[in-house]
């Protein structure tokens, strides 16, 4: 197994990531530009629900008799926003906790990690069901809970990566050189953690996405009539075989988004390594 051969690096650099860019770009474009391109909201009368593509409805209708094309054009922003929001909550809380745990204070490590174990051991489903049943249904509850549910995973990942032997060696070296805690953590560890964190965040985005969508069915978060892509997928799942467009178009957009995003992250990491 040859390490980092010349051809490796050349190949990576030469290939323009147009497929990955397109996969990421199309959903983002639809989400951002969609609301300006489409016409009026569906009328109150409503067409027949779950009709396959046909006259007047290029992508057919959804389970509530609304035009799928219109919904798809309007449902991107909320899904991207809330998933990113939850992810940010997870990272904002998880990364500092992970670093704290990996830091020099042994006591911190124990209390942080055992505390997070508690969170991990607590059935998140119960929290969601309780929130829904007690009327705490606003989107920010959901985004917060979805984010907090990611904290133990993120913190563990950060701690694990920060304690990785290679990393420790360098940290010790930097420590010896008299660099301060902040320098080590902000500069060196940030570089060190970028790879696993970015990979994890890419995958976690999908997890959060579907967590948000499924919570919707407990009556949490966005209303079930929202055009949100994730909500559309869940709502129309029963019609997967009679009106596939209502599920597969938003699912395709979300999948493309995740795939494109992940591939670009992978690529960026590979470039960083080979360019170093």
């Amino acid at each position, binding site marked *: *197994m040859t*390490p*980092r051969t010349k051809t*490796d690096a050349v190949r*990576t650099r030469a290939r323009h990531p147009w497929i990955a860019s397109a996969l990421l770009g199309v959903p983002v474009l639809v989400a951002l530009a969609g609301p300006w391109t489409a016409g009026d909201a569906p009328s109150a009368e409503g067409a027949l629900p779950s009709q396959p593509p046909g006259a007047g409805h290029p992508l057919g209708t959804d389970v509530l008799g609304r035009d799928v094309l219109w919904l798809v054009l309007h449902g991107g922003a909320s899904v991207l926003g809330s998933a990113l929001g939850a992810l940010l909550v997870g990272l904002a809380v998880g990364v500092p906790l992970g670093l704290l745990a990996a830091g*020099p204070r*042994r006591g911190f*490590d124990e209390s942080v990690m*055992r505390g997070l*174990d*508690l969170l*991990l*051991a*607590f*059935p998140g*489903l*119960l*929290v969601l*069901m*309780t929130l829904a*049943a*007690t009327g705490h249904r606003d989107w920010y509850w959901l985004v917060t809970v979805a984010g907090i549910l990611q904290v133990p*995973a993120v913190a*563990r*990942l950060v701690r*694990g*990566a920060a*304690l*990785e*032997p*290679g990393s*420790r060696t360098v*940290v*010790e070296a930097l420590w010896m050189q008299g660099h301060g805690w902040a320098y080590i953590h902000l500069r060196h560890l940030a570089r060190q953690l970028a*790879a*696993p964190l970015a*990979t*994890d965040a*890419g*995958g976690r985005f*999908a997890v959060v996405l*579907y967590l948000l969508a499924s919570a919707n069915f407990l009556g949490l978060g966005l209303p079930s009539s929202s055009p949100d892509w994730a909500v559309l*997928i869940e709502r129309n799942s029963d019609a*997967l*075989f009679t009106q596939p467009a209502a*599920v597969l178009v938003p*699912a395709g957009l*979300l*999948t493309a*988004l*995740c*795939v494109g995003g*992940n*591939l670009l992250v*992978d690529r960026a*990491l*590979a470039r960083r*390594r*080979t360019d*170093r």
Partner: protein
Amino acid sequence: MRAYLLRRSLLAVIQCLVVLVAVFAVGTLLPGDTADVLRGELGTPEQVAALRTQLGLDEPAWTRFGHWLGSLLTGHLGNSLTTGLPVGDDIGRRIGVTLLLGVPALVLVTVVAPLLGTVSGLREGSRTDRTLNTAAVVLHAVPEFVLGLLLVASVSLAAGLLPATAIGMDTAALIAQPAVLVLPVAVLTARHLCDLARQVRAGVAAGRHGPVAEHLRLLGTRERTVVLRHVLPGALGPAAQQFARCVEGLLGGAVLVESVFGFRGLGSGFVEAVQNRDLPQVQTYALLFAGTAVVVNLVGDLVAFRLAPRREVTA
């Protein structure tokens, strides 16, 4: 090491207790009680009140929790409010189903994910890597129920190769007909496997180009040794912790797979218990999940510790 284990075990007990108290506290926030659920729409106030007295739900919530905790200390998990039978009965019936789904899935994840991740990571940028990696990303991003329903439609309904559902089958029937398990295990495995494989891949790719690997190479260490001694352990450390959560996901989070394929496992049992407001049962599930999570995390930490012993950074 032994002292560490002992301390963690003691902590584990305390952790479970804290989780139980929290679960009970959250559970009491749920609207309605078992009497409301059991009598439902038709229950007259008279009928609901009669049942409430019969079930002892007229006692204060914390008194009931105290009773339950007391009986737990003597080794009894209490009786289900909805059935009046020991809660262990129902959970016992379900645990076999969950193990039949979870253990094969876990074995698959454990074996295949590091393998694929390593292969991919060592050949980063190659055709093999791109294919594997793209497949993993796609599988990870496809909604599970879409994957499940499409698999059933193609493999079972159209091709007639495997059974479509497991409805009406208990643990013994499932063991007699393992073919039933193929599709659900595939769906259950897909996301975790892809997640873990990508994690390992990233770790391997990063480690291979990391300063330590470069340093070892400069010292003339063979590439094989660099990979086996340094790169892999470094990548598997974080992965081991990732894996810990995946165990928990497979155990309690199989609700979707259970429902698409008609299994009666722990996941749907927990949802049912919450919906029935059957707190003794909810608490027993919580104890089971919390216990598993704590133990698995401990094991994950020990593995990570072996792979990357924590060193004190002292000035």
